[in-house]
């Protein structure tokens, strides 16, 4: 495929390519057919040609021969118009103007897609469609059903309550660590709602809403956080490093952005299987600085793998504000650079999240290609329990996002506006969830820790003899010197 062709219409690119020279123009014949080209000696400087000059033609050869630029039926052998040059990568028009493509603007940023206004009212009262700029055959998206909406809202509330209780538990010293999704509840829950259960999710760490949607129980969350013997991770990892093969949610891994190229790999495997599924991988604004981001997006584009890259641009990477993280207009503009269709969405609007992920998924699966979605949002909580964000950002900024721009209450307004929810149900849900969580924590805390042999298993598929020996030795030592070891290790 000729990668030099602009197949994604972009205003900026059009503007700089407007100035074409007609130096080698031979007389006669039509070019684009849209306007008159004077013979060379009379030509005016800087003709601007119409869009069809840059129309959709494809080029396979890189021979330096003269080429008919236009997709007309004109006799190509007749008149040769040298409107550009062939280079590896395709045909390129040239210009006499020394114009630099300006960097992405802070004044004129890519707009974000939203459905609900800040008061939870559908904007314009119209149904939310994806506008036609993207190459996709998405049908008109009706707003979601009451059932889906209520499930989404409930899980967002449960996520909020879960975050509050587990955070408190860490502060009480019962958990070593925790990190919340406060302010970003719509992103994980509504995304999950828009996916199928076959879609593989490769998270970063601020997306437990996906697990909640897919059915991970509060007890299962607690077991992982307490690292007890019921933890699917067998106590191997810090809290919040959840994983569930059954729910198609890859175990959280700490190094940032590694999941991005890995997602392209999983998507490649899915494509080879010809499965009706895609991969959805999440990462933050900070992770987009990692080399793996570049490698993953580049690769997915080249291998044409069905992966949806989802960036939670929440403004902060611990204490590093986005203005110190990159100088581009966020992450959405980077997708185009890799040849990936991209969209920017209001991440605090549950309906916008749902619609955009649904559309992105369809594009990825039906067209076998990657898609980039940037959710603009705000990290209301601290980065984790090891952070105090009031030290580097103003309290009133945090308050503003916590109250006025809260995604949960915004969605609540829409759900209540439809008559699907009320105050009683709200307090019932919150208190029931709180109670379930406290019970789950108590139970998880009391459950036995994993046994000694789980220290040595899973290093390899089969435990090798040297590890079995070490295990036996350690068991002997513990038996002989029990005072030197905690009494609650099942040996």
């Amino acid at each position, binding site marked *: 495929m000729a990668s030099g062709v602009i197949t994604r219409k972009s205003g900026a690119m059009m503007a700089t390519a407007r100035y074409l020279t007609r130096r080698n123009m031979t007389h006669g014949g039509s070019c684009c057919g849209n306007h008159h080209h004077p013979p060379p000696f009379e030509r005016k400087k800087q003709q601007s040609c119409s869009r069809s000059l840059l129309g959709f033609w494809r080029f396979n050869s890189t021979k330096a021969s003269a080429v008919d630029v236009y997709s007309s039926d004109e006799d190509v052998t007749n008149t040769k118009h040298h409107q550009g040059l062939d280079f590896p990568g395709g045909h390129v028009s040239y210009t006499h103007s020394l114009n630099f493509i300006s960097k992405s603007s802070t004044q004129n940023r890519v707009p974000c897609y939203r459905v609900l206004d800040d008061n939870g009212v559908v904007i314009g009262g119209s149904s939310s469609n994806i506008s036609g700029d993207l190459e996709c055959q998405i049908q008109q998206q009706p707003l979601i059903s009451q059932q889906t909406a209520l499930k989404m809202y409930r899980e967002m509330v449960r996520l909020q309550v879960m975050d509050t209780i587990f955070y408190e538990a860490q502060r009480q010293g019962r958990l070593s660590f925790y990190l919340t999704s406060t302010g970003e509840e719509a992103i994980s829950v509504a995304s999950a709602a828009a996916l199928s259960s076959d879609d*593989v999710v*490769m998270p970063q760490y601020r997306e437990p809403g996906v697990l909640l949607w897919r059915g991970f129980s509060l007890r299962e969350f607690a077991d992982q956080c307490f690292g007890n013997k019921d*933890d*699917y*991770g*067998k106590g*191997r*990892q810090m809290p919040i*490093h959840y*994983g*569930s*093969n059954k729910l198609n949610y*890859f*175990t959280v*891994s*700490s*190094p940032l952005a*590694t*999941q*991005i*190229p*890995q*997602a*392209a*790999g*999983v*998507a*490649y*495997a*899915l494509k*080879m299987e010809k499965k009706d599924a895609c991969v959805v991988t999440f990462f933050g604004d900070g992770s987009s600085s990692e*080399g*793996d981001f*570049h*490698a*993953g997006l*580049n*690769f997915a584009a*080249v*291998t044409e793998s069905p992966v949806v890259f989802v960036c939670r641009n929440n403004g902060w990477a611990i204490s590093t504000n986005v203005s110190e993280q990159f100088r581009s207009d966020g992450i959405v503009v980077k997708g185009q650079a890799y040849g990936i269709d991209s969209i920017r969405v209001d991440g605090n609007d549950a309906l916008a999240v749902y619609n955009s992920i649904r559309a992105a998924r369809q594009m990825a699966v039906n067209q076998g290609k990657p898609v980039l979605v940037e959710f603009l949002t705000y990290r209301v909580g601290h980065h984790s329990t090891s952070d105090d964000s009031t030290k580097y950002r103003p309290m009133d900024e945090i308050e503003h996002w916590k109250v006025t721009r809260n995604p949960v209450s915004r969605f609540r307004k829409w759900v209540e506006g439809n008559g699907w929810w009320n105050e009683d149900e709200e307090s019932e849900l919150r208190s029931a969830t709180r109670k379930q969580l406290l019970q789950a924590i108590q139970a998880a805390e009391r459950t036995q820790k994993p046994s000694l042999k*789980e220290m040595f*298993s*899973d*290093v*390899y*598929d*089969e435990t*090798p*003899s*040297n590890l079995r020996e070490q295990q036996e030795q350690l068991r002997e030592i513990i038996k002989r010197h029990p005072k030197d070891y905690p009494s609650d290790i099942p040996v």
Partner: protein
Amino acid sequence: MWGIVGQRACRHGSSAMSLQGTRPVIHALRSFSTAAKEMTVRDALNSAIDEEMSADPKVFLMGEEVGEYQGAYKITKGLLEKYGPDRVLDTPITEAGFTGIGVGAAYHGLKPIVEFMTFNFSMQAIDHIINSAAKSNYMSAGQISVPIVFRGPNGAAAGVGAQHSQCYASWYASCPGLKVLAPYSSEDARGLMKAAIRDPDPVVFLENELLYGESFPVSAEVLDSSFCLPIGKAKIEREGKDVTITAFSKMVGYALKAAEILSKEGISAEVINLRSIRPLDRATINNSVRKTNRLVTVEEGFPQHGIGAEICASVVEDSFEYLDAAIERIAGADVPMPYAANLERLAVPQVEDIVRAAKRTCYRSSSLAATA
């Protein structure tokens, strides 16, 4: 001899290898027949990968220049034509990218073979190898397995300078969760490559550029498509009774030459081809030292924290009373590899160094602590 081993036994790694019941006696007779055929290491690797790709559609290749260019060292010659671009991927130049993609594909159940043009470049991807491939099975408690093979030339070539010559055996071998293999002969290349591809754990497969073109005799056993070598078993290339010499990869050839020279001087050296760096076959090494009472370890890589250091520690821990002399450790010079031919020759172990070291353990020459 190990050619008899069947596929099932390959997966048991360093656990006790049982030969009984895997192959009937008739195969044992066949393996003693003289091998008429010779095969280069390059062809051995190519045929092993080809056969495994043919047998299992999940196996696929990835790397720079592996397809159209037929492989930077022609190891993957002909495979793109045979299996198509879906299974032989020419990648953009991002080690981190294609290693990450490979790991992801392995997470989902494919069996990627990821080629590094040299293991020196694997450092650009080492986070994916260590933090993802090696640790995922453990950290996910068995939910995520990573049946991936990372392969490519390792160690010094000829005249390629510091950034193309480092040996990464000890870097990878220190990491639990990885298996690290280093073939020497064509038989090793075939058997270990097949074992690596079939193994459900991530395997680092360290080849050697200078060995690619060398020919070795191969028996009918080795040429059979079901041939496989066990991971975690060293091979005694030459039996002896006076001194044990351990080596891997290209240094096995040097050790054998040294043994030949030593035998003319009345010293019978036992040469052990490690084949597997992790898991290390401590049993074979220790049994040999208990027999000979002397040990020389040979490696091309840097001496500090090297393979020889680990072998030395193992023998001192397990067979201290059997040692009649201090252990000699032959390794590359502790400098980044220089380019000039004379300097390069001085920076890598030579056969004479091994001979002198063996003699020192036999008290046949005075010990010079700092020099080889």
